[in-house]
Structures are given as C-alpha cells and as structure tokens.
C-alpha cells in the first residue's frame, strides 16, 4: 500500500513538473514613446500681386492667389486676411473698400466666406471643417481679387501689404 502511494506521488510530481515546464512564461514590459512634431503652416503661391495699369473709374482685371494650409494639431483653425495700410502712392490713397476679394475652396471641408472687402483688421474667409483638423492632404484655397479705381484717382503706382494668417482657436 505504501509502495503504491509512493508510486502515485512520483507520477504526480512527474506530470506536474511536465505541466510546469510547458507553462513556464515570464514577461517584462518596456515603454516605447515618440513625440510627433506639430505641423502648422500656410504657404502662398505668389508673394507679389500686380494688377497692372488701370484707368481711373475702371475695374482692374482679377488676380488669383492660391493658398495651401497644413496642420496636424487636431484643433479648430481659420484663415483671415487684412491689409497693413490703404493702397498708397505718395500722399494719395485708394480706399480699401475698393479692394475686393472672392474666396473659394479647392480642397477642404470647411466653410468659406465668398466675398468681401479688404480691411485694416483681419477678416476670416475660411473656417476649417473637422476633416481639416489633421490635413492628410493640404487644404487648398483660392482668393480672387480686384480693385475698383475711383474716378479722378491720381496716377501712380499704389502699393500695400496683404497679410494672410492661419490661426488656431
């Protein structure tokens, strides 16, 4: 009887060891990390916009500029435009109310304000849609602009600087 008990224990130990051997496992964790850089930029196709020669009382030809906006910050953003000063030549000015723009979206899911006047304060003309919060392909915008030259305007080369800004909320 004792012999059988010893045999049983030996088998028990043997099979338990086999089971233990096949189930032996040990884990160790290792933290992996990366920091994805922020991309937030706007680029403009042409940095110089020349409306050519225009007679007083006439409307200039339309000039187009294309804008490209890229971000991966996953936040609301919008694009605005303003002029740093009126169109000026020496002491003469063409009012900014005569400087018109029309906007359109070439690629993007946001809302565009279709038209307006250039002002001295920024005016939003594009508000990004949710699909634009991370731009796998750039959001492409087009601005078409023209100038109504007032009758009796003094001849000369009038200039201003336009500022187009992409900003996050």
């Amino acid at each position: 009887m004792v012999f059988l008990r010893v045999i049983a224990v030996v088998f028990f130990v043997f099979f338990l060891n086999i089971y233990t051997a096949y189930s032996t496992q040990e884990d160790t964790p290792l933290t992996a990390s990366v920091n994805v850089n922020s991309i937030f930029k706007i680029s403009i196709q042409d940095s110089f916009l020349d409306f050519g020669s225009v007679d007083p009382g006439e409307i200039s030809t339309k000039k187009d500029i294309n804008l490209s906006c890229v971000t991966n910050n996953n936040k609301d953003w919008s694009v605005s435009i303003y002029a740093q000063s009126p169109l000026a030549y020496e002491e003469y000015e063409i009012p900014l109310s005569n400087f018109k723009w029309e906007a359109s979206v070439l690629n993007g899911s946001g809302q565009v304000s279709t038209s307006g006047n250039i002002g001295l304060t920024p005016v939003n003309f594009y508000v990004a849609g949710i699909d634009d919060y991370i731009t796998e392909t750039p959001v492409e915008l087009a601005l078409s602009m023209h100038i109504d030259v007032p009758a009796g305007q003094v001849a000369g080369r009038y200039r201003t600087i336009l500022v187009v800004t992409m900003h996050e909320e």
Partner: protein
Amino acid sequence: MRSKPLFFAAVFLFLACQNALASFNIETDLNSIDFGYMNPTATKGDIPFQGLTVRCTSDQGNPWQLRLRLETPLRHDNNPSQVIPNENFWWYGISTTGSGTLVIDEQDFLIERVAYNAPAGEGASGIDIRLQFKLTIPSSAQSGPYSTRIILTLIE
C-alpha cells in the same frame, strides 16, 4: 492516516523548493525606448542606437523562446483615439550570445512574434539578445506624445 497529509506536504515542499531554486527570468538593460521628435511620414530606425539588450536566463534544460508584442498600438497620450498602427512599428535582432536562431529581418508588431529560438539546455548563465526598433509616422498623425508598452516574453 497522518501519513497522507505528510506526503502531500512533502510534495508541495519539494515543488516549491524546486521552483524557488529554478532560474527562469528575463530582464532588459533599458526600461524604455524613445524615438524622440518625428515629423509625419518620417521613418527612424536603429533605435536605441546601442540596441536593447534582453538577458534571458533558463536552467530548466528545455528549449525556450523570446517573443515580442505590443500591449496596445502607440496611442496619443492626450487623445487615445489617435494611434500609430502596429504595422508602422518594427523590431529586428542585431546580435546574440546564444547559439539559437535570432530573427534579423524587420518584423512588424501586428501579432506576437518569436525573436529568438533557443535550443534545449541553453541559457543557464544567461543569453544576451540585442534588438533594435524602427518606426514610421503616418501622414495623418496628430501632433503630440504617443506611448505604449512592448511586452517581451520568455517562454518554454
């Protein structure tokens, strides 16, 4: 009648002592690997530069394996819905002090994979396995910090 509990006590004591004396463990020389700052679409390999050394010790006499998997995809720390897919994250072996088979081709983290196959009887005094990692950031990745845990498993 009292001999039966004694037998079982002896068996469990025997097993406990055997397990306590057995050497079967895994340790790494680093607690973390960091890819640093990366741009979308960028790829960075050979991380860490000196390699991650994994020391596997087993005196059980059985064949054993080192396996790797990711606990989760790399997740944005502030926006867990943003992940870097496991197929953009690779590992590969660069050297070993053992005589087993080390996988040196790039392997993604889509599933748990075997990095090293040790023959029976190897590893009583520890085998070092050096690994490196490679990552590509998707073009649509949100900016910010991402992290996860790599699980290294020593299994017989």
